[in-house]
């Protein structure tokens, strides 16, 4: 049986998602004789989807309003120059599965604000996110059989719950320390060039432009220290570079992974 090299999307699905999406990723992991989880995936998970869940939990805790938190979520996407799918946002607004929709209006007389839909939704989602965050962090290493690609420059600290919110230090890599991936990557300039050329052939989009910039730096000035920003910009290239030849990169985003993996003769699987 093959071995899997797990990317951030699979980690996110197993730790944060629910229902069929989660089960599909879990079932996919069960197909392999060995599942390798690079610490880089944990790092990206912590800085990306995990931090987003924490942000939303804290927004709900501080605004006490589901509607306000959703508006803030929309604004956050705008500031990151990302598009939130309209159908997904509308589904969140409707929250048709909420316990609030089963709460009779007459309970408002008895329970006041605690029986109002916005307040109910706020607490319902906040409590679910709080559980998700705690469980996800506790279980982050248990989804795979083998941790790989350790990053001595990544502190890997989890969130702390204080004053009703989660505190998550930005963490990542300390500014004054050289990225530990750089020293390993510059040993294979041929791989870096192959990856760079593969990225150049990809559609123009901000993520690819950032990745190209980071790869170009490694190719042209290999001895220059790499900071956390460039480390994160590498993204999918890290998985393509470091995945052992006897593994398959497991991801829900084959579109971006395949060209990079193919450039180094590696394979990609999806759930």
């Amino acid at each position, binding site marked *: 049986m093959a071995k899997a090299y797990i990317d951030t999307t699979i980690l996110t699905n197993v730790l*944060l998602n629910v229902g069929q999406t989660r089960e599909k990723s879990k079932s996919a992991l069960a197909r392999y004789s060995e599942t390798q989880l690079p610490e880089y995936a944990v790092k990206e998970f912590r800085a990306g989807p995990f931090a*987003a*869940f924490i942000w939303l939990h804290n927004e709900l805790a501080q605004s006490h309003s589901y509607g306000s938190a959703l508006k803030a979520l929309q604004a956050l996407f705008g500031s990151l120059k990302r598009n939130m799918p309209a159908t997904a946002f509308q589904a969140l607004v409707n929250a048709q599965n909420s316990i609030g929709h089963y*709460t009779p209006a007459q309970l408002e007389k008895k329970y006041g604000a605690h029986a109002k839909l916005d307040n109910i939704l706020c607490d319902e989602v906040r409590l*679910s996110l709080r559980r998700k965050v705690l469980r996800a962090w506790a279980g982050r290493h248990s989804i795979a059989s083998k941790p790989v690609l350790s990053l001595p420059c990544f502190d890997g600290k989890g969130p702390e719950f204080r004053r009703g919110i989660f505190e998550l230090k930005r963490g990542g890599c300390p500014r004054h320390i050289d990225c530990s991936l750089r020293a390993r990557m510059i040993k294979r300039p041929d791989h870096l060039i192959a990856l760079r050329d593969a990225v150049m052939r990809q559609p123009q989009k901000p993520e690819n432009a950032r990745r190209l910039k980071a790869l170009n730096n490694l190719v042209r000035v290999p001895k220059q220290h790499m900071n956390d920003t460039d480390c994160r910009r590498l993204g999918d290239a890290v998985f393509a570079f470091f995945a052992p030849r006897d593994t398959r990169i497991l991801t829900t985003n084959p579109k971006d992974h395949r060209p990079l993996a193919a450039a180094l003769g590696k394979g990609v699987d999806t759930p």
Partner: protein
Amino acid sequence: MPDRDAEVINLADYIKRTDYSEPARDTAEHTAAGSKHELPQEDTTTFEGASKPTADSGYMSMEKLYPLGTEKSPELKAAVRLLQEAEAFVDEALQACRDEDFLAAAIAMQELKALLPELFCCRVIGDGFGATIVALFHSIKNHGDHAFEDGQFVTIRFLVRKLASEPFLSFEEAQKLIDELEDVGFAVESPEIGILADIVNDDVVGSGT
């Protein structure tokens, strides 16, 4: 509104230090400081074969445990009443299931589900309480049209009794109860959490700027 961080509520205002006719079934966490009550042995018959609590079973009612609490907190008073109803519905459902009267069991679960929204309105009691109620609601809702199994009824009954005797349970204690729901096959979360996970799992969210 109580501070959400105060997971263990000081019960000194609620519990009189007088003799009770029945021993308290409680954890050290929820016993008022300085209480001279000895904690009874853990009731090991909570799951299979557990009967309704009686005066001799070591189970203390909410009114005895928190004699002033229900007066000072209308939400606690409502929760006490609703949890008693909830336990009755689960008992009915469990017995009906064992008698293979699946229609009666289904109706009893409908009745249980109907009172959970009002129980959630009492969530000012604490985050542990609120988290448990909403997880139970989604467990039943997500179960859809499938028949409940004996073990699932037993777990729900354990959870309801636990809440009734420890309404101020901590968030961490609540997670253990919710884990028990997952262990018997329930999906404890709302599908909306999945929508959020899909949004943040977009490969570009959070990637380096």
